[in-house]
């Protein structure tokens, strides 16, 4: 996957900056929420916004709209698109981590958020569902579920999902409706459900899940992605392995160079918000990839 040109990759819809009405904001776990947002009008022009279209793997930058009062600066927060709906709305699946996500969790239906998107490249659209393995860690599951939900239902895709504890799954219903039972492995650190151990241990103990796999899509905390990539190099040496990075992204629009990662054969670090967030694992400079990436996924 060569570095994309400076503009958004072809075939992806152009991004817009819109004000969204929160349709719902539902707690689905101790620190997990799903928020559904309906774009209403363009933030700059006030014109009505058409609905939201994107490709799985893309993300949006979400923040409080400007109010004409006290200036109170904050970065927007990058959030993977988790679902898109027929009415043009979209959902994000998020974890309360710090100040920004805590604030999101306090909002209710009818409140307004500002949103820019879709941004970034996409998970591979041509990966065959039946020979693709999804490996998600924590909130990193969001883009993977989005990807699988776009295919046949029930999906022939295999899913390994690592969480700390049963309560942290958050989206059991969605997972059960999209994936078949025999294609799903939940791994918990505390053994409260499914396999007791991390995703790599789970994969090692369940070789049927990797049989015939040609594509692996990974998203989660950096140590988990690193370990999974090592597993793949040994056990699936011919598979195309993709990782979706969650580097800190101050702007998400390719404006600041705050989100860069080192890529093999690229003379300079590349902007993960623009060239990524999805990278072929084999092209990443794993040795220098920032520790901040996916630090709270």
């Amino acid at each position, binding site marked *: 996957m060569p570095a994309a040109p*400076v503009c958004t990759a072809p075939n992806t819809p152009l*991004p817009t*900056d819109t004000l969204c009405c929160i349709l719902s904001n539902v707690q689905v776990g101790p620190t997990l929420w799903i928020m559904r947002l309906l774009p209403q009008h363009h933030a700059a022009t006030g014109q009505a916004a058409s609905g939201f279209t994107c490709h799985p793997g893309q993300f949006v930058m979400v923040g409080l709209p400007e109010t*004409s009062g006290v200036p109170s*600066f*904050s970065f927007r927060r990058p959030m993977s698109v988790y679902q898109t709906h027929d009415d043009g709305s979209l959902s994000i699946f998020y974890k309360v981590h710090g100040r920004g996500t805590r604030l999101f969790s306090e909002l209710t239906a009818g409140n307004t958020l500002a949103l*820019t998107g879709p941004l970034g490249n996409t998970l591979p659209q041509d990966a065959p569902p039946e020979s693709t393995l999804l490996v998600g860690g924590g909130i990193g599951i969001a883009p993977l579920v989005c990807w699988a939900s776009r295919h046949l239902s029930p999906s022939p895709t295999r899913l390994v999902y690592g969480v700390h504890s049963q309560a942290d799954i958050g989206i059991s219903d969605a997972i059960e409706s999209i994936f078949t039972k025999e294609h799903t492995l939940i791994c918990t650190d505390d053994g409260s459900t499914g396999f007791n151990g991390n995703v790599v241990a789970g994969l090692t103990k369940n070789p049927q899940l990797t049989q015939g796999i040609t594509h692996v899509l990974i998203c989660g905390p950096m140590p988990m992605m690193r370990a999974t990539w090592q597993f793949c190099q040994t056990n699936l040496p011919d598979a195309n392995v993709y990782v979706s990075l969650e580097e800190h992204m101050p702007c998400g629009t390719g404006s*600041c160079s705050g989100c*860069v990662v080192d890529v093999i054969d690229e003379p*300079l670090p590349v902007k993960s918000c623009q060239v990524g967030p999805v990278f072929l694992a084999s092209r990443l400079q794993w040795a220098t990839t920032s520790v901040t990436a996916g630090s709270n996924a």
Partner: protein
Amino acid sequence: MTTATASATQQTIAGIEFPHCILNASGCFNPVTFHQLNHLGACLGGIVTKTTTPEPRPGNPLPRTVELPGVGMLNSIGLQNPGLTHVLQQDIPTFADCGNVPIILSIAACSTAEFADMAAAIEAHPHRRHIQALEVNLSCPNVAKGGVDFGKSPELIADIITTLKQVTPLPLFAKLTPNVASMVPMAESAMAAGASGIVAINTVLGAHINIHSKKATLPRISGGYSGPGIFPIALHHVLTLKRALPTATIIGVGGISNAENAIAMLMAGASLLQVGTQCFANPSVFGQLHQQLHQYMADEGITHMDELVGAALA
């Protein structure tokens, strides 16, 4: 009540026609994405590129930014850029398609000779025709002269501007650091050497410590502070520069977050404005400021923004 027309915020400075008075600040703005989001031709006065150095620069280790909730951010990007050749060849023509507004190329180098070489390369390049002016980023350490920041020495500033004037007829805007006892001698020196205007201010030195890790958040400890918390400082500098150099063109930048800030910055003496950090919080900032500034002028019966420029010093 007069209605402010589109031309109410047009400015002609150093022969360049800026269709609006608000530009982006260097290093905080991807013209391609922002053109997709905003249609820049309708609201942006001109594109200022990320600062380019002669050779590609990889920039600093991560993290490079820190959110300072409420007041702004720190950055320590380290001028990552693909180098002049790539910028001239690839980026400039792309930017020329983004709203068809004037393009100001921001340049930085480590010695006067390097600055001269950059100007010569620009003059010789076929894409030179897309470039209306150079912004000379004088906040970098001068490697040739023992690491003194260019922006802290009136002599070095005069030297660079004089040298550049000999190589290029492009208007030069000198971008100055506020991390000095007074910006006035620097601005005087740049103007005397032939600069077409002063860009004030670059970021203010600041730091952040993560009390959990007990370490400075930025690997290089201090970084550049920008956003609403520096607006009072930027306003002070623009007022001070305009009082000292009433005829100089000043491009006001630093913490502009809303229309009230923009109007105050014009009243302080800025003829053009730049918005940086606010682009991160609000990518629609240019359209909104443009609309609000026109509304204000219409309400106040102001037919051209020049009536506002320096009004606070009248």
